[in-house]
C-alpha cells in the first residue's frame, strides 16, 4: 500500500488549524487547572476538617468520573439544570480545567507532604511564622519536586483534549476525522496527527526539562556557596 503524499500535504493547513486549537485549549486549561489545583491541594492539607473534606470530595468526583462525561454534562446538562449556556470553548476549557485541577491537587499535596518534617521543625526553631515556613521553606522545595509530575499532567491533558470533539469543537483529532470522512485514508491522516502530537508533547518535555535544570542550577549554586564557606572556615582553622 503506497502512501498518498499529496493528501498529506493538502491536509496540513486543516490539521495545523486543529493543532492550534488543541494547544490553545490545553495551555489555557492547564494554567487554570494549576491555580485551582494548587488551592485544592493546599485545602486538602488544611487543619479544618470541613475544608479538607470539600477538597477531597472535589478530587474524588473529578478524578473518579470520565472526562468525556464531564464534558458532556457541562455542555448539555447545564442549560436545562442551571440555565447557564456555555459555548463550546467555554465548556471545553471549564471541563479540562476542572478535571486537570483534581490531578494537580494530588500532585501538589504529595509534593508538600514529601518535604521532610524536620524542615518545618527547623524553621520553627529559627522563629519563622507558619506563613514564612510555608512560603520560604516548604513551597519552594515542593515546587521543585512537582515539576516532573506537572509536566506529565500537561502532556496527558494535551492528549485528553481530543475528547472535546464530542461537543463539536474542532481540535486536531476531529480535524483529521473530517478529512478521513471524505478521503477514507485513515492511515496517512492518523499517522500525521500522531507526528503533530509528538511535536507538541516534545516541546512540553523540553520546557519541563529546562524548568527543572534552571531550578537545579539555582540549587547547585547555593550548595557551592555553602561548600565554599565551609572550606574557608576549615582553611582558617589551625
Amino acid at each position, binding site marked *: 500500500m503506497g502512501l498518498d503524499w499529496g493528501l498529506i500535504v493538502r491536509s496540513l493547513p486543516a490539521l495545523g488549524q486543529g493543532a492550534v486549537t488543541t494547544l490553545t485549549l490545553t495551555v489555557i486549561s492547564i494554567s487554570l487547572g494549576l491555580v485551582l489545583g494548587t488551592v485544592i491541594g493546599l485545602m486538602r492539607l488544611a487543619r479544618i476538617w470541613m475544608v479538607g473534606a470539600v477538597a477531597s470530595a472535589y478530587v474524588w468526583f473529578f478524578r473518579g468520573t470520565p472526562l468525556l462525561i464531564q464534558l458532556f454534562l457541562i455542555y*448539555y446538562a447545564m*442549560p436545562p439544570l442551571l440555565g447557564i*449556556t456555555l459555548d463550546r470553548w467555554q465548556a471545553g476549557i471549564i471541563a479540562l480545567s476542572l478535571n486537570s485541577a483534581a490531578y494537580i491537587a494530588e500532585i501538589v499535596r504529595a509534593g508538600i507532604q514529601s518535604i521532610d518534617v524536620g524542615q518545618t521543625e527547623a524553621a520553627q526553631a529559627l522563629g519563622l511564622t507558619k506563613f514564612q515556613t510555608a512560603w520560604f521553606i516548604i513551597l519552594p522545595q515542593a515546587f521543585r519536586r512537582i515539576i516532573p509530575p506537572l509536566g506529565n499532567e500537561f502532556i496527558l491533558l494535551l492528549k485528553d483534549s481530543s475528547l472535546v470533539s464530542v461537543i*463539536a469543537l474542532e481540535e486536531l483529532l476531529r480535524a483529521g*476525522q473530517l478529512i*478521513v*470522512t471524505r478521503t*477514507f485514508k485513515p492511515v496517512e491522516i492518523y499517522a500525521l496527527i500522531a507526528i503533530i502530537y509528538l511535536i507538541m508533547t516534545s516541546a512540553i518535555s523540553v520546557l519541563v526539562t529546562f524548568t527543572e535544570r534552571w531550578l537545579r542550577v539555582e540549587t547547585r549554586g547555593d550548595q557551592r556557596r555553602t561548600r565554599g564557606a565551609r572550606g574557608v572556615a576549615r582553611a582558617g582553622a589551625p
Partner: protein
Amino acid sequence: MRRGLIVLLLTLALVVSAAGAAAAQTLRVGVNAAFPPFEYIDDETGEYVGFDMALIREMAARMGMEVEIINTAWDGIIPGLLAGHYDVIISAMTITNERAQAVDFSDPYFATGQVIVVHAGDDSIQTPADLAGKVVAVQIGTTGHFAAERIEGVASVDHYQFAPEAFLALKTGRADAVVVDELVAIQEIRANPGELKVVGQPFTVEYYGIALRKGREDLLRAINRALAQVRADGTYDELYRTWILGE
C-alpha cells in the same frame, strides 16, 4: 514414520480447509447501530434490529450464509471495510461518488433524502437558503454533513459523533437546525413528540446501497441477486411496513 507424518499433514490440511469453508459461510456485516429505524440496538433484547438488519438477514438466508453483525463507529466504517474487518456494510449508506471511489456498491435498496429539522415553534426556516447565518448540527461523515456544507452562507456546520447528539444540540439551543436523513428525522420526532419538526420535503434525493471492497465481484453478484429475490417475493415490502411505516 514418514507416512504417519503425511497422514498428519493431510489431516491438518483437511481441518484447516474445513474451518475455512465454515468461515466463508459467515457474512460479516459492518454497521453503525445508532441510526433508527435502519439499525439500532433493541433496548430490551440487546439485539441489532432495524430495517437494514432485517434486510441483510433475509438476504443472507437466501445466499445460504450466516450473518455476523459488527458494530462500529460511523467515521471509521469504510476504513474498517477496506481493512477487511467485515465483508459488507449495510448502514443506511448513501451511494455517493466519493464513496464509490473507495468501495463498490450494490444496487440501490432504499430511496430517501435530506431534511431540515428545527424547533417545533420555529417558522423562520422554510428552505435550505434560510439556513444562511444559522448554526447547523450534523452527524460527522453523513450525507447530511456534506449537504449542509454545500448550503451557502451557513454560519457554522457543527459535527457530532452521533445523530442523537446533533438533535440534542438543537434541543439545547446549540444549533438552529439539524440536517439529517428524512427517516431518521421522523423517528426522532416520533420518539420526542412536540419538540422538533421537519421543514417541508427532502431537498436531496439519495439511494442507499450495500458497500463491499472493490474486486469482490462474486459477492457483489450474490448480493444483488438476493436483493432482487427479496424484492420479488414480497419480503422487502413486508420489512418496509414493519420498520419504516411502523405497522
